Structures are given as C-alpha cells and as structure tokens.
C-alpha cells in the first residue's frame, strides 16, 4: 500500500476541486467532502498498518514525484517522506479529520455556505497532509502556508460579520510574523548547508556544526519563531482565542487537533538541529511552561465556552513545548495525539451544546444541561477528565510522561516541573468550573428540542472511546527520536503529580458548585477584581501589543496621511503625464512628419558613424 501514499493528500484535494468547480447539491457536497476524507483515512489506516508491520529499521519510505524547482545548485523535489512520526500525524489528521467532517454534516446543516465549508475543510486536510509528509522544507512550507490560508478562510467563514473578518486578519498577520522568521531560518539553513531536504539537512548539520555554536542556535531560534506563531505560544499566542469566531468544527479540527500542532511537529521533525542548540531547547521548555501556566489562569476567568477551550488548547500546547524542550520528543507527540482526541471531543461537545442553546456561548447563561443533553454531558465529562489527566484516561499517561521528563531534566527541571504541576491544578480548576457551571445547577436556558442527530453523536462516541483508550497506544517512535534515558522519579514527585488534578477539581467543586457565593466574594474585592480583569484579558498581551506595536504604527500612518512620501510620487506621476502629453504631440498623424522623423533618425545614425 505504501506506493499509494500520494493518493492520501490527493483525495481531499480532488474533493476540494470537485466542491469548488461543480455546483453540487447539499447531499452531494456532503458525500464528496466526507467521502474523500474518509477514503483518505481508510488508505492511511492501510498504509500505517503496513508501515508498522515492517521491521523497525525499515520504517522509512520516500517517494519522489517530480523536480519542483531547480536553480543553480538548489533543487527542490516534490517528494513525500513517510516515517513513524509522519505516519502518526497522518493518522491523527485523517482520522480526527474524518470524524469532524462527519460531525460537520450535522452541525453545518442549515448553513448556506455548506459546500464552501467542505471545500475549505478538504483543502485544509490536503495542505496539512502535505505539511507532515513533505520531504524537504520547501514542500513543508507549501503545506504550512496552505493551512495558514485555510485557517484564515475558515475563521472568516461567516464573512458578513466584521468581528470575524478582524479575527481572521489577526490570525493571519500574527502567524505571518512567525512565518517570516521561519522563512529566514530556511534561507539560513540553505545558505550554510546547501540543501533543504530535511534528512540531508539534519545529517549536514550534525557534520558541520558544533553543539551550542552560534549558527545552529540562530537557525533553531528562527524555526522556533515559526513554530511559536503556528502553535500559539507566548508571545504569538494572541490570535488563537479570537480564532474561535469560526464555526466550531473548525475550532476542533484546525485550532485544537491539527494545525496548531504543526509547530510541535516542526520542532520534532528538526529535533537534531535543536539538539545542536541547547540554549534554544531550554528556551522552548521555558516558553512552554510559561505559556501553560499563564493561559491556565486566563482560562479560569473566561465566560465564553469556546474561549475557555481555546486557552486550554494554548495551555496544552505549552505542555507539548515543555516536552520538546526537555527532549521528551515521544512524549510531546504522544500528548499531541491524546490532546487531538480529547480536545476535539470537547470542542465537538461544546458545539453540540451551542447548537442546542441557540448559539449562546456564555457559560453563565447555561446551566443544568446534564439531563437535557446527556450525550454532550458525558462527552464533556470524559473529555474533561482526559484533559485534567485523571488516571486511566489518555491524558493521564501523556501528561505524566511530560511532567516526569521535566522533573528529571538537569536544567532547572524542578521549576519546569512545578509550573507544569501548577498548570495541572489550574486545568482541573477551569475545566470543572466549566462543567459545573454548564451542566449542573439550575436550568436557565431554553433548549432547542430537535437537537442533535446521529451524525453528530457518532463522532462524539468514537472520540470518547479514543479519549479513554488513546493512552494505551504505544507510539513506535523509538527509531525516530534519540532515546531519552529513564529518570528516577522520587515518590513525592510522583505523588504530587498524580494528586494535582484532583486538587483542582476539588477547588472547583467547592467554589463553583458547593458554594457559589465564594467566587463572587473573591471577585467583589478590588484586588480580586483587578486580577480577574487582568487574567480575563489574557494577561494583557493584546493590550500591550496594541500599545507598543499597533498604536505607534497607526500614529505613523496618521502622520503620513498627508503623504510626505506620496507627494513625491504624485509629482512623478504628474511629470509622467506631462511627458506623455508632450510626446503625444509628436504623433501628429501626418505622414510627412513621420517620414521626417525617419529621415532625421537616418541623419543621426549616419552622423554618428562619421563622428565616431
């Protein structure tokens, strides 16, 4: 089956083309959209099974299609590279993608842009697959920009609303900062290592560069910039909460399960480069830990159900970065996978809730939905438990691997671990704040009766299962990443790690279920209110950027509104028009004048001959 690898991205792409070019009925659009991704998922399954059936040394498959561009010593092949890492990513993308597509058939049922929605989704799947399968950085970058484009289109899917357009633009511009850095990184790598083929690049880097020298450090830092933008890590995290303006399936697919993990994938893919730059590795870990900590607090005070989940996503991505930073590569990918399952589940369940309460997203306007929406409630419960990392759920295994790796790290491992554990407490706290508020207590919303159909329930059930059993998978990534040595973890560490989520849940139970007045009381005090506002605004990042970046820029724009530079151009344009009019006068239409011009030309040419 391996030789059919090219078909995997091609199927969704064909789906996209069909959806765009043909005026399909809704039913046909659904069949094409879901069917193409479903077929890709099936094919992926076969390919992955075959790949893992091979002996572990031979689990690498490379397919070259054509030479994409060639200039002097630069050659970019359009080629795919399949190894266990890519295979895992591919399985997540097509698998979760298929479920979300299926869910969308129900969710988007009444939307006039039904076909357009599936077209974008299919294009996204294709681009994401190209990203993870790309054999060299150019192909990867193609996919990278492709998913960025789809993200932009889908955030702004309901383009009638001004806010959505703004959110889409913001996401595009903020991630573009990262992309620019990444492109610079690619140029730098090519300049010094003469190739962009990833495997070759890593080999060359190992040959030519010393660990810790400046070149690999700069290159890794630039690539990290790209990863930060895509994966919404500090300081480029501000776009993700706003991106929730898009339809909920998009939030589940792009802004939780797949695209935002592209940064994690990029670092894992180029881990050999990062190993040459220990300083950057530490920076990765530090950024991850800070992000997970800060966004945990932010999630705690949000009121919009989707924004809570968005900050939670940022926080979980922080865990992945933490894992990458401490060299626990497989743990990062493992968490990536389990997170894809449970976060997709949470978003989809949230979507089902939102759909049933007439597109209300404020959690304090919900309540007591447990009985009315049992499927959503149980989905939320299972997803939440996995997110909080309660034992026996998938999140437990992956998060603990990360926290143990952090604890065993020799560089300030304790600090990182502590931040991670505090983050875990916060996770428990905000997750169950959400669950208690929405599903318990008294009902205060009218529920849409016709609610959800089978196509919505089925993906939820499957994802529930995956969120539980997902932790039992053993990812065969040993040959992709260098083995990380087993650290001895002290009993205390282990215990604290295990207990932390329950602490969070317990506090949540006390404050948000048992004694609701307590929360109000805290907020009633000035410090509490200030803190709440500060956290609510996402630690003021947006405010800060507005002040130090946007405002000066706007000021500059205002100053230049009267066109200091433009007047120069306007003068040039005016001059051009004048010359045009003068030249136009020579074109008199009179034949003898034209003959005269020819004769004059001849006189000049022959004259030049004489006097030279």
């Amino acid at each position, binding site marked *: 089956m391996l030789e059919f690898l090219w078909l995997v991205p091609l199927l969704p792409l064909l789906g996209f083309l069909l959806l765009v070019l043909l005026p399909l009925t809704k039913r046909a659009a659904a069949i094409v959209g879901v069917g193409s991704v479903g077929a890709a998922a099936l094919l992926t399954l076969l390919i992955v099974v075959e790949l893992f059936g091979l002996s572990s040394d031979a689990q690498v498959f490379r397919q070259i299609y054509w030479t994409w561009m060639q200039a002097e010593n630069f050659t970019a092949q359009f080629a795919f590279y399949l190894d266990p890492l890519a295979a895992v990513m591919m399985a997540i993308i097509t698998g979760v993608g298929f479920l979300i597509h299926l869910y969308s058939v129900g969710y988007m049922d009444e939307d006039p842009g039904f076909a357009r929605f599936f077209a974008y989704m299919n294009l996204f799947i294709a681009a994401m697959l190209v990203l993870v399968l790309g054999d060299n950085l150019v192909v990867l970058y193609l996919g990278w920009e492709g998913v960025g484009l789809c993200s932009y289109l889908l955030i702004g899917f309901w383009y009638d609303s001004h806010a959505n357009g703004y959110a889409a633009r913001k996401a595009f511009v903020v991630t573009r900062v990262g992309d620019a850095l990444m492109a610079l990184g690619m140029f730098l790598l090519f300049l010094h290592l003469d190739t962009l083929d990833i495997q070759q690049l890593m080999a060359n880097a190992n040959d030519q560069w010393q660990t810790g020298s400046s070149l690999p450090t700069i290159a890794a830092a630039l690539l990290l910039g790209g990863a930060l933008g895509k994966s919404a890590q500090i300081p480029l995290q501000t776009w993700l909460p706003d991106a929730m303006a898009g339809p909920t399936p998009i939030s589940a697919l792009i802004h939780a399960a797949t695209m935002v993990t592209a940064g994690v994938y990029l670092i894992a893919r180029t881990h050999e480069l990062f190993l040459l730059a220990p300083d950057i590795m530490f920076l990765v870990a530090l950024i991850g830990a800070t992000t997970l900590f800060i966004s945990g607090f932010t999630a705690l005070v949000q009121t919009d159900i989707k924004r809570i989940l968005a900050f939670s996503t940022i926080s979980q991505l922080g865990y992945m970065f933490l894992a990458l930073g401490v060299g626990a590569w497989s743990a990062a990918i493992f968490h990536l996978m389990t997170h894809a399952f449970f976060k997709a589940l949470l978003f989809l369940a949230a979507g089902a809730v939102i759909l049933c309460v007439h597109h209300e997203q404020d959690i304090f306007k919900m309540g007591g939905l447990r009985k009315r929406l049992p499927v959503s409630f149980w989905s939320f419960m299972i997803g939440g438990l996995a997110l909080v990392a309660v034992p026996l759920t998938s999140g437990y295994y992956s998060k603990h691997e990360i926290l143990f790796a952090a604890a065993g790290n020799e560089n300030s491992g304790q600090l990182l671990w502590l931040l991670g554990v505090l983050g875990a407490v916060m996770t428990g706290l905000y997750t169950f704040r959400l669950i208690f508020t929405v599903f318990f207590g008294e009902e205060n919303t009218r529920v849409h009766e016709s609610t959800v159909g089978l196509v919505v329930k089925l993906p939820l059930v499957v994802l529930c299962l995956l969120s539980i059993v997902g932790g039992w998978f053993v990812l065969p990534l040993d040959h992709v990443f260098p083995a990380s040595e087993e650290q001895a973890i002290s009993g205390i560490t282990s215990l604290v790690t295990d207990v932390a989520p329950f602490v969070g849940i317990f506090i949540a139970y006390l404050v948000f279920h048992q004694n609701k007045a307590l929360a109000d009381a805290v907020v009633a005090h000035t410090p509490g209110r200030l803190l709440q506002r500060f956290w609510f605004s996402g630690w003021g990042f947006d405010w800060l950027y507005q002040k130090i970046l946007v405002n000066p820029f706007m000021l500059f724009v205002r100053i230049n509104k009267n066109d200091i530079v433009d007047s120069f151009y306007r003068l040039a344009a005016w001059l051009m028009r004048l010359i045009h009019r003068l030249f*136009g006068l020579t*074109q*008199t*239409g*009179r*034949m*003898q004048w034209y*003959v*005269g011009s020819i*004769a004059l030309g001849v006189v000049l040419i022959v004259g030049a001959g004489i006097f030279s």
Partner: protein
Amino acid sequence: MIAIPVEHCLLLSVMLFCLGLLGVLVRRNIIFVLMSMEIMLNAIGLAFVSGGARWGQADGQVMFLLVITLAAAEVAIGLALVLQLYQRYRTLDIETISKMKG
C-alpha cells in the same frame, strides 16, 4: 575598357536618393510621393549596378532586377490605394489621411 570612377556613380545615386527623399517629404500630392519613392528605388538600383561593376560581378544586376520587381509590386498596390483615396475623397491630398493621431 571603360574607366569611370565608381565613386562618382555612387555619388550620383546618393544625390538621386536624397532628391527622392526630399520629394517624399515635400509633396502633398500622393502621386508625387509615389513617384519620389520610385526615384529612391531607382537610385538604389544604380548603387547596386555600380557596385556590381566595381567588382565585375553579376550580383549587382541581379539585385537590380529584384529591386525592379519590388518597385512594380509597390507601385501596383500604391496606385490601387490612390484610386480608392480619390474615389472616397475626390482629392489626392495626403493631409486627408491624417485623422489618426495622438
């Protein structure tokens, strides 16, 4: 044999050529313009033939023959257009065909 300076032949052809050009530049009657073009072509023929004479080759005269062919074809088409011009505007003034400009 005949001893005639080739330069003088060329000088003559240059003079005729310039006179032809002058005619094209000055005359407003389209028939005169065409005649002046004939003068230019004839001057070219003279230059070719004298070149051939200088080198004792037949090539000059062959080129002259080709020039005559061109002259014939050009005159045929030119005069056909002159007839149309006259039919349409009842004049041979070249200024009538200066409407397109700018």
